[in-house]
């Protein structure tokens, strides 16, 4: 059983589980939206004293911070007890495209070119990680949600604003991948 779960999961089963998580949270009186944790973190750090956006009852959002802790634990369990030993299989065309940008054959979930400490502590590597983070943190709150809040929860409720947000996600992602990557890498 453990061996079976330790293999990488199919898209349909994963989608099913993610959808279940959305419904579990609804059943417990909350909703599935992860990026609000970023706002809570800022508020808990005292940002509410100077910036009105963070002046709200952040303690009511502690359930989501607990969810975040759980997510870290889940990642840890997956990386240890449930770790499979299959190689990382990435689409050949993607591997080829990434090779042109200077990325080696994938051997792990994340490219060492970006996520190893050697790379992360170079000026360029650090700038990439920090810029990526800032864009996600800024954009998700500006849009009022990220993938979980808009693409999953919002679209499930047939919210037109969420469709616009998801379109935005793709405009940004495609622009970065196809136009900016050749300049960055």
């Amino acid at each position, binding site marked *: 059983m453990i061996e079976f779960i330790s293999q990488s999961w199919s898209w349909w089963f994963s989608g099913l589980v993610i959808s279940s*998580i959305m419904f579990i949270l609804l*059943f417990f009186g909350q909703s599935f939206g992860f990026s609000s944790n970023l706002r809570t973190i800022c508020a808990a750090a005292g940002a509410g004293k100077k910036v009105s956006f963070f002046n709200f009852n952040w303690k009511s959002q502690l359930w989501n911070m607990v969810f975040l802790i759980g997510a870290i634990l889940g990642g840890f369990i997956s990386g240890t007890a449930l770790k499979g030993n299959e190689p990382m299989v990435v689409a050949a065309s993607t591997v080829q495209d990434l090779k042109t940008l200077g990325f080696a054959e994938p051997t792990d979930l994340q490219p060492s070119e970006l996520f190893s400490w050697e790379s992360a502590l170079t000026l360029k590597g650090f700038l990439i990680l*920090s810029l990526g983070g800032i864009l996600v*943190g800024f954009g998700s709150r*500006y849009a009022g949600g990220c993938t979980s809040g*808009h693409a999953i929860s919002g679209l499930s409720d047939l919210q037109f604003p969420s469709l616009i947000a998801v379109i935005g996600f793709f405009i940004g992602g495609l622009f970065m991948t196809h136009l900016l990557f050749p300049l960055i890498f």
Partner: protein
Amino acid sequence: MKFIKFLLTGILFGIVMSKSEAISWYRIQEMFRFQSFHMYGIIGVAVVLGILGVWLIKKFNIRDYHGNPIVFYPKERSVTRYLIGGTIFGMGWALSGACPGPMVVNIGFGFLTMTIVFGFAAIGTYLYGVLRSYLPH
């Protein structure tokens, strides 16, 4: 301990995001290059089941475990903030290969440099808070 249920649900989230490899920068690249169905499959199934389930909840007035009706709040109708905010988010998603959830799952999984990404995501959110009144919504 009323938070236990959220911890367990979070653990499930961390597991599915890692086992599905949705936390992988490579999978996000495949997605934005349209070179694999995988991420579309994951999100597609979640959305289809989500639409179905939300419809059922509304149709049968299904209540939550407190006995309260499950309410869905319509988002304020606009285009600007969703389009611009979404685009900025998408750029970051492609660059880092992670949205906020996957960032922390990656940290748990063992990619500790994701703490840099996550830390700056919090900074990005703070910047939004500061600049908010100057931005078109």
